[in-house]
């Protein structure tokens, strides 16, 4: 029996997996529905740079045979996912969103994380749009599913946009200064930046090796957690029933709120919405305490400086040895690489040294206030227009690149795990998001806390992107060509 495509694509990874095992629908049914959704949404979203229908359907058919034969690879078995185009996928070129790599040969092997997803039975649909070499927050030409004239955020913008419209159930992103959390917030989905060093980055093009992390973007906290489990355990996430969240309620959750810095220079509606979410969590029983972190601005500066130096170092060999290729870089990255050569080694090492101090200071903050998570906004604004990439309505005039990394970068300096999830819509029906920063090594507790917060805020039960609604025809998915 096959469900309608629209209903299937609104389901969670867990629900899809339960349906596979109950023979209510099959991986091929679901993959066909997803491919149909891509076909419909892609002309306005530009979330994908490559979709391989034939390969995806072959993978789905294999998953279907395995499940029918009683082989269970775990929660991602037969689940269609997307991969940001800085991850190597064997047989496809990794172009990193750059014209300089238009002639890139197909990758000969899968990146470590893609291999983990494949080992877990996931169906790889294709590659998603990224900002050039993951260095930025705009992700052209991808657009925001909530408003096609707005940007989806970046650099993992294609992954977040695709997840938001049901064009895949999860997607890989990378986060060096916020590139998972920023598009997750702008597109109204969930993103997880693991602790620095937790997931291997082999086969992923680097941006800044001291800060680079990779992680999943999915619609809900539970979906994100299932992907993270597979990545963490190299495919063997365990059977679905073993990953049920512990039954903890909000009364056991102690939330720190760091208002100075993180609540400065926000759009008024972002501030009121996030404060409203905090009030709601408090009213439902969570303990909310003020937990000021005076080092937040300096932690951001630290991550910014490390990022700029290492980005220049990654690309300098191309600039020096392959000038014709370097000339094909976009202007923003060319400037970052060329001018970044002028930053002194002293400043870089000062930032690296300071970083350890910031990790210690945030650890002390958690201990002093006995908090489980730190809650702050993800972005100072909602998604901005693709035609005007500046922020002017927060009280501070900034480029989108500066404004949109202001609240995320401090946690790249500390290296701790952070989940970004949506909390509400503004008056223009654009998502507003929050970040929950947790304790390294206590990711399970962070996911459990995030699931409680998600349940209390009930974003997904009341909101779907307009693109998603328009394309939910309620009928059977179209056959893929």
């Amino acid at each position: 029996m096959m469900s309608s495509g629209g209903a299937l694509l609104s389901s969670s990874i867990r629900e899809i997996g339960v349906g596979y095992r109950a023979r209510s629908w099959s991986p091929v049914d679901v993959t066909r529905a997803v491919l149909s959704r891509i076909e419909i949404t892609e002309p306005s979203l530009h979330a994908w740079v490559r979709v391989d229908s034939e390969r995806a359907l072959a993978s789905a058919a294999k998953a279907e045979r395995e499940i029918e034969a009683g082989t269970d690879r775990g929660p991602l078995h037969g689940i269609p996912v997307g991969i940001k185009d800085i991850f190597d996928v064997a047989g496809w070129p990794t172009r990193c969103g750059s014209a300089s790599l238009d002639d890139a040969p197909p990758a000969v092997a899968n990146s470590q994380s893609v291999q983990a997803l494949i080992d877990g039975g996931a169906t790889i649909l294709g590659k998603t749009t990224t900002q050039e070499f993951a260095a930025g927050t705009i992700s052209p030409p991808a657009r925001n599913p909530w408003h096609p004239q707005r940007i989806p955020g970046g650099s993992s913008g294609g992954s977040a946009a695709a997840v938001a419209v049901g064009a895949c159930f999860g997607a890989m992103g990378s986060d060096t200064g916020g590139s998972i959390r920023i598009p997750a917030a702008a597109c109204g989905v969930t993103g997880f930046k693991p602790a620095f060093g937790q997931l291997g980055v082999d086969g992923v093009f680097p941006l800044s090796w001291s800060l680079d992390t990779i992680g999943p973007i999915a619609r809900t906290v539970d979906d994100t957690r299932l992907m993270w489990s597979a990545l963490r355990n190299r495919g063997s996430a365990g059977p679905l029933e073993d990953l049920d969240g512990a039954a903890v309620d909000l009364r056991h959750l102690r939330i720190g709120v760091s208002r100075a810095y993180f609540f400065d220079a926000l759009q008024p509606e972002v501030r009121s919405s996030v404060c409203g979410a905090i009030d709601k969590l408090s009213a439902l029983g969570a303990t909310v305490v003020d937990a000021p972190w005076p080092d937040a601005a300096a932690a951001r500066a630290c991550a910014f400086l490390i990022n700029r130096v290492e980005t220049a170092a990654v690309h300098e060999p191309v600039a020096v040895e392959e000038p014709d290729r370097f000339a094909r870089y976009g202007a923003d990255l060319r400037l970052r690489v060329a001018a970044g050569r002028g930053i002194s080694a002293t400043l870089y090492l000062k930032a690296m040294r300071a970083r350890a101090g910031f990790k210690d200071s945030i650890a002390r903050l958690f201990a002093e206030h006995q908090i489980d998570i730190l809650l702050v906004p993800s972005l100072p604004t909602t998604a901005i227009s693709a035609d005007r990439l500046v922020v002017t309505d927060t009280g501070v005039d900034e480029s989108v690149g500066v404004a949109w990394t202001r609240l995320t970068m401090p946690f790249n300096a500390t290296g701790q795990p952070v989940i970004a999830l949506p909390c509400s819509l503004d008056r223009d029906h654009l998502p507003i998001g929050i970040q929950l920063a947790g304790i390294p090594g206590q990711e399970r507790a962070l996911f459990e806390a995030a699931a409680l917060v998600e349940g209390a805020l009930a974003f997904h039960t009341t909101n779907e992107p307009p693109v998603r609604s328009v394309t939910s025809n309620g009928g059977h998915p179209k056959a893929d060509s």
Partner: protein
Amino acid sequence: MAMEPKLFEASPEEVQSFLIRARQVDPRCEEAAVRGYVREIVDAEAVLDAVNLRLAPLSVVFSASWEVEPSQ
């Protein structure tokens, strides 16, 4: 660790130094763009300089773990 930040402006000499290095690999680099880039770097340095680093460890090897690690 926090102290009040002092704000700096990039000096013309500083901008010129960056510009020379930048044009070695990208002759098209515009001075205005480099000046903007240097301003961001100088601002970040000023914020970082407001932090007392005397207590920060000298090692630059980073681990995200919060467990106490033996000093070298």
